[in-house]
């Protein structure tokens, strides 16, 4: 249904979707060439909130960049914290105590659930369902409260330190997390799947729509749920393990269909897998310090360093160049949403406007992370 019978190039008009538009979640502008309601050509225009984060990294010392990481992907800020901490620890050769690694995994996974819940809410909002938004925010609120207890902030965390984490977690956090997991487990089948996933209108709107092939994913470098929804079994946590992820037993949900429904299902299953990881981490949580030995002023040896983490949207790579000084010489981020968005132009061609927006929602775009 998404391919029109014929497209005439002489009867088209240009529709500027954004930078202020309810469906673009931020300041993304898509220049659409339309034939009626069919999209002839879609061209994402970026740069509306470019803040030169990578350049900022060069101006300060290593620790000063930590708050910036949270301002890029504000929905999965802790994974960005983690990525930056990992690459600097690698460069400076800092050891992280085991308890800190466990706490990092617990908080990052909690944050991943919060990110997926918010994606779910926003995606349903794109599809015109307002009520699921508030159900998801109800659960997300619990996570934010938990994370606020340990990190001190609610959205833009600056929790990780080179060599550990800022605060230790307490018993209240642990019981609170266990309660939350119990609560979300009981709510997922009813409030999420019965109300929304099995809804005939939703299925008709996202099944077989927005097809992304595995070949396209490889060509554009799409990762995360987008690639896993197209049958590519790739997750940094399994394929290039970092931190203490190898110690946990969890699955990587992969759906081969490649449509919006597949991406939806990947994220819903990831919520369950994240809960499994958190439970195991809480069970095995070792005692000890949460902060290792790290010099106040870092001066890593000159060289190239790279580390990758899996954020809620895919692979986040940090490429750090050091010249032996107290500042990074250069930092380059490889952010997942940029590659995922690059798909949009090719896939949206020939789609109806409403389908294209549903497809865009299923990519889970976080614009500040594209325009760093």
């Amino acid at each position, binding site marked *: 249904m998404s391919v029109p019978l014929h497209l005439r190039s002489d009867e088209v008009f240009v529709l500027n979707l954004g930078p202020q538009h309810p469906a673009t979640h931020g300041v993304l502008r898509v220049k659409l060439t339309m034939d009626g309601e069919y999209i002839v050509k879609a061209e994402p225009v970026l740069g509306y909130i470019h803040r030169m984060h990578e350049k900022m990294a060069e101006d300060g010392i290593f620790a000063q960049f930590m708050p910036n990481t949270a301002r890029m992907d504000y929905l999965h800020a802790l994974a960005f914290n983690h990525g930056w901490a990992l690459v600097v620890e690698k460069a400076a050769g800092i050891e992280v105590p085991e308890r800190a690694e466990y706490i990092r995994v617990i908080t990052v996974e909690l944050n991943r659930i919060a990110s997926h819940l918010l994606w779910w809410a926003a995606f349903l909002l794109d599809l015109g369902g307002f009520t699921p938004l508030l159900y998801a925010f109800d659960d997300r609120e619990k996570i934010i409260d938990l994370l606020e207890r340990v990190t001190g902030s609610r959205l833009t965390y600056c929790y990780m330190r080179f060599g550990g984490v800022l605060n230790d977690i307490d018993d209240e956090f642990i019981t609170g997390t266990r309660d939350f997991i119990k609560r979300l487990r009981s709510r997922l089948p009813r409030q999420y799947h019965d109300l929304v996933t099995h809804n005939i209108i939703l299925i*008709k709107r996202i099944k077989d729509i927005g097809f992304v092939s595995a070949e396209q994913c490889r060509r554009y470098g799409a990762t995360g749920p987008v690639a896993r929804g197209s049958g590519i079994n790739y997750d940094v946590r399994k394929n290039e393990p970092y931190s203490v992820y190898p110690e946990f037993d969890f699955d990587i949900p992969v759906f081969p269909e490649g449509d919006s429904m597949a991406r939806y299902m990947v994220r819903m299953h990831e919520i369950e897998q994240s809960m499994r990881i958190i439970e195991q981490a809480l069970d095995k949580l070792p005692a000890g310090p949460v902060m290792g030995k790290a010099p106040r002023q870092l001066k890593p040896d000159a060289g190239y360093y790279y580390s990758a983490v899996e954020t809620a949207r895919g692979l986040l790579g940090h490429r750090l160049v050091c010249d032996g000084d107290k500042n990074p010489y250069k930092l380059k981020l490889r952010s997942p949403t940029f590659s995922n968005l690059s798909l949009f132009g090719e896939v949206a061609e020939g789609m109806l406007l*409403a389908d294209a927006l549903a497809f865009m929602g299923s990519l889970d775009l976080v614009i500040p992370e594209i325009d760093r």
Partner: protein
Amino acid sequence: METSVWRALLYLVGIMVFAGLNAAYLGWCERKGAGRIQRRIGPCEVGYAGLLQPIADGVKLLSKQLLVPRGVDHILFRTAPVLAMIPAMTSMVAIPFSANIQARAIELSVLLLFALASIGMMAVLLGGWASGNKYAIISSARAVSQNLAYEIPMLVTVITVVLLTGSLELREIALKQQGGFWHWNVFRLENGHFLTMWISFIIFFICSVAETNRAPFDMAEAESELVAGYMTEYSSMGFGLFMMGEYLNIVVGACLTTTLFLGGWDCPLGLTPGVWWFLIKIYILIFTFIWIRWTYPRTQIYKLLNLSWKFLIPFSFANLLITAALIKVF
């Protein structure tokens, strides 16, 4: 002569008050209902339980500047919101609220209501067209194709009711259904009509959701796609009138459904018929509208049209044939 003038004046004021109150307070009901469904409170600050919220909203809208963007068609741009409101209000004239409360018994009142509904649809078309906004024009095009598609099955199902009752006058139709719910058109037991009439009712109800542009069929104002659709360029009371017109259309739709299928002012057990039963029924229907809106996501315009052309229209025609055959046989 004297009494007829007083009567006309009374009904004029009465209808305007009823329409005005509904247009204002259905917004409040909707927000409260949505709040309940979404596990939050809804408006609660202005007045007891937010009851003065519609008045505050009205004052706010009135005090805003009516912004007319450059490049719009001035006459059409200003006419459209009025055109959205007036037909809906005029429709109330023909509606029998009880055996004695009806402004005017017009012989072809069913047809009149449909004609007025079509004029109301023109407001959406003109408003979108006059705005000169691409989103508004897409929205108008959607609204027209949607209303066209759903008016056909709606009218065809109304014919089944007309065949059954033998009248095009709403009061007559309601009078034929008095004496308990087993006489209502939707449950009519005699002559095997229970086979077809509930299908008519369901088709009519779906169509009235679509005709009033309510979710999940709110293609014309799909805010995640078309910003605010045909209302994008409207501010102040221009926007306010469109909203009031929308709510009045819902009231008219509920009144029509009640009169055609649910026995009008009849009590379900046939005891105390009266205007209160009419009001109870229409508000139950309106609540159902609200409930549906806040539960389901939006459909797609082509799926919506497919539902009508490929499913509802054939079904309604088959339904009409069977009803006619049943009337002939018994």
